[in-house]
């Protein structure tokens, strides 16, 4: 599938530390507000007093703040009680069984008083939709005192605690206290700074999920803090950042909602730069969903604002996206002009990520115009720059394209190996959009090598993902390939049906592939003798 575009939502800040540091965060020495210190003392008081099972809830929006507070609690209690922290890293069916299992793994034979702090149960409680674990919890209160002999404190962000109170009332009814931590401005700012410095596209799938939950925590904190311009500006930026993470996780609807929400706040603040950034991201989303007209409108609107503001980096990003649009609609001259203009600005700014991005796209242009040697040179140069700055997403795309080059020159074994190398990275990144394209390519190789069953399996796997994402161009391309497969297997009626579907999607998208699909369809109709 040609046209493997590099369209990464801009992340705002420059990459400094790529991954989320878990320890030795800079705010460890931050002062705790007097209000939160009181809350800590109250939790300590419950643990000191209780001589049997007690159920408590702690409201804390930020996983990072929770970790800090639990550490302080340990210091505060010293030898008086043993604090066991159970952090649930994935959704669970039964909270009680999950905690018991975690304790079992620990295998600590602990004498004396112990209190169990449970973190991460919010991963089981979505902000909307069914949460069956709450029903289970609602009925399991009687089992808790049988399983635990000391206090159990469940730490949750605000929304999850409210859901629990309403949807597990019988469990909630047995609480011995709800302790609420307020957001700490210092922690919030430090976390935001850190999250802003990590590129979503280069994180592994689990890191992306982790980042999304940290961003959600930040958003809740900002919503709780008194509203003022500074916090609102940050909220808009965090919402957009979460939108990007959702985009890379293939959750397009959620990304759309977040971008809209961010833009609304920026508009209220009169923050034009924020509005321009959200418009750009919405454009990328529209582009991915196949609404090219809407994408162009959004890119142009975004670019107009960036030009007014003199924000060259954003202008360069918009030029790049408009170049991508021209490219997919077959207007190659216009695409080249836009990419080169974007490249020049990126070079002037010393924006390596932008340079790598433009070189990649120029490689695509060389590729489709048949200049394969030039294409190879550009891809390799782009990949080199990206690797230097620790980007993994762009190199995965370059590998993909180098695979296409090998593929085009008939070197199937090399192509397969390049696709597989690219696939490995894409899967680690949870980059579904690349995965389905690579499956498509691998299907083509199996098809060309005469392995029809394998080809069919790969096409279908690809189709499953592109349909899940709603990526129409991908759907149509794979349908067209499946049509060819049916021709090879001798099922002309099926083949015709598939190419008709593909053609209608291509036409809807205004894709240059529509012409080829039309030719294929007419040929088939003629063969079957059925006008």
């Amino acid at each position, binding site marked *: 599938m040609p046209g493997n575009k590099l369209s990464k939502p801009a992340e705002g800040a420059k990459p400094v530390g790529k991954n989320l540091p878990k320890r030795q965060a800079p705010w460890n020495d931050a002062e705790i507000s007097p209000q939160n210190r009181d809350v800590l003392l109250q939790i300590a008081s419950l643990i000191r007093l209780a001589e049997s099972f007690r159920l408590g809830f702690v409201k804390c929006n930020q996983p990072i703040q929770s970790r800090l507070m639990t550490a302080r609690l340990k210091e505060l209690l010293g030898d008086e009680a043993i604090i066991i922290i159970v952090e649930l890293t994935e959704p669970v069916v039964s909270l009680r069984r999950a905690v018991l299992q975690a304790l079992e793994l620990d295998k600590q034979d602990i004498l004396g008083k112990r209190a169990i702090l449970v973190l991460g149960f919010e991963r089981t409680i979505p902000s909307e939709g069914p949460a069956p674990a709450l029903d289970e919890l*609602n*009925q399991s209160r009687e089992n808790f005192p049988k399983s635990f002999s000391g206090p159990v404190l469940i730490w949750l962000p605000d929304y999850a605690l409210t859901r629990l109170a309403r949807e597990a009332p019988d469990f909630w009814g047995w609480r011995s206290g709800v302790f609420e931590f307020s957001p700490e401005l210092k922690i919030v700012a430090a976390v935001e700074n850190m999250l802003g410095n990590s590129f979503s596209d280069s994180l592994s799938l689990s890191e992306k999920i982790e980042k999304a939950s940290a961003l959600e925590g930040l958003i809740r904190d900002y919503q709780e803090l008194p509203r003022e311009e500074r916090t609102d500006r940050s909220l808009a930026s965090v919402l957009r950042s979460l939108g990007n993470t959702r985009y890379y996780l293939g959750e397009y609807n959620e990304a759309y909602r977040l971008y809209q929400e961010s833009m609304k706040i920026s508009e209220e603040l009169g923050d034009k730069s924020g509005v321009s950034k959200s418009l750009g991201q919405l454009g990328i989303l529209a582009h991915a969903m196949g609404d090219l007209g809407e994408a162009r409108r959004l890119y142009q609107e975004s670019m107009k604002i960036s030009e007014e503001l003199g924000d060259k980096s954003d202008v360069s990003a918009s030029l790049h996206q408009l170049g991508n649009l021209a490219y997919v609609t077959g207007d190659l001259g216009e695409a080249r002009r836009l990419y080169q203009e974007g490249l020049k600005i990126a070079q002037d700014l010393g924006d390596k990520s932008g340079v790598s991005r433009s070189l990649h796209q120029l490689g695509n242009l060389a590729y489709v115009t048949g200049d394969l040697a030039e294409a190879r040179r550009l891809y390799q140069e782009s990949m080199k720059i990206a690797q230097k700055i620790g980007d993994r997403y762009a190199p995965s795309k370059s590998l993909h394209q180098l695979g296409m080059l090998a593929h085009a020159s008939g070197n199937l074994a090399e192509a397969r190996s390049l696709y597989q190398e690219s696939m490995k990275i894409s899967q680690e990144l949870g980059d579904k959009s690349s995965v389905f394209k690579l499956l498509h390519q691998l299907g083509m190789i199996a098809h060309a090598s005469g392995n029809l069953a394998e080809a069919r399996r790969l096409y279908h796997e690809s189709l499953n993902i592109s349909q899940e994402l709603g990526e129409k161009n991908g759907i149509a391309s794979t349908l067209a390939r499946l049509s060819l497969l049916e021709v090879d297997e001798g099922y002309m009626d099926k083949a015709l049906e598939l190419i008709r579907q593909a053609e209608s999607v291509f036409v809807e998208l205004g894709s240059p592939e529509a012409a080829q699909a039309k030719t294929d369809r007419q040929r088939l109709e003629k063969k079957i003798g059925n006008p």
Partner: protein
Amino acid sequence: MMNRDPPATNLKDAYNAVRLDPLQSGDPRWVDCSPARGGTDVMGLLALRIEGSSPTAQLISGHRGCGKSTELLRLVNHLERENFLVVYFAADEDIDMGDLVYTDLLLSIIKRLERTLFDKGIKIDERLSDGIMMWFAEVAYGWKDEAVMEAKLKTEFELGLKAPAPLPLIAKLLARITGQIRTGHEIRKEIRLNLDPQIYQFIERINEFIRAALPEIQKKGYRDLVLIIDNLDRIVLRVLDEKTGRTTHDALYLEHAEQLKALDAHIVYTVPISMFYSLKATQLAGAFPNYEILPMIKVEEQDGSFCQGGIDLLCNVAGKRIDVESLFQTGVVDFLAEKSGGMLRDFIRLLGYTVELDQAEGGKIPITKKVAEKAFRRLINEYGRMVPDEHFDLLAKVAKNKQVRNDTQHQAMLYNLSVLEYMNGDRWCDVHPAVRELAEFKDAWKQIK
């Protein structure tokens, strides 16, 4: 029979003396709160019907945390002293309350009955009990051969770590069926499908079992058999049919009232209080004419004046656990009693909060009203989480009229305890004192005034 420590005189003992678990019967800390529950001894009424009539099914209802389980355990104790054989169990220990159908309940009943008889050394005619067992084996699993079944159950129970003592075959079989219904998703559906069309035979088998057991029970000196099923009111409320509004509660208590009433024994079922405020309330009272609702302890009269009687009773509840005079300044416990709305569990909870907060602030004794106010503030915040925004206008109306309408919104308000029910001659309702302090409620209250 129970040796209790004297009321606590320090904070640590006090904290551990105020726990939310229901009291076992005979616990000296029990206080008769009936004078402030409208003057009727609800459990006494239930007992009277059991002692004075032929087997009937009765319903008991009341708010979560109003003292229902404590009172039911007291009823058990009373009946046992009157020489009744009582089978008491909490339904949610046997049954998945998120997905319960009436046949699950009936299975759980016969399982518990068999266990109790076994424990008391009451044997029934073996041929009869074998016949009943094979009926269940065939209907549930299609097993016809006792030897085959015996072999299968033997290996299963040896593999599992359950059953420390040798269990009779029928107990193993019933444990297997109820266990699978509780945990196995597919097999649950299958067993239910098999049982449902045979419901009349099913009930007849249980009654055969009861009839065979009764003479043996009486030989042991018991007057009669009583079944008490607690926590059945925790059955999750779900709408099963959007068009008719039919709920899981309707399905159990109304559509299968006949089956629930068909057992040849005295039986007491717990029912969610919200059912008595649904559109189906009359229908429910028609199906089960013998029902009682345990109201809250009155801390205020209907006209808003103070109800000293109720407050004194709650102070008495506190005094059984804590040495109130040495630990609290005068009037502090009265304040907590008033703010609990007469809901026992919230009152005990507030006592615990007060002790814990006082300890956190250095542990000065006697505890001041300022600390108690902080404890109440915490309870207010908790109710703030429980009440959805759309309820506040309606809550203001309840506070004004002291009545609730029979609709789903008001049912939800009773269910989450933002509205409490009281009694003096007539039933009346009021808004929980913690809810009254919420800003949203105050706004709605201003509007209505």
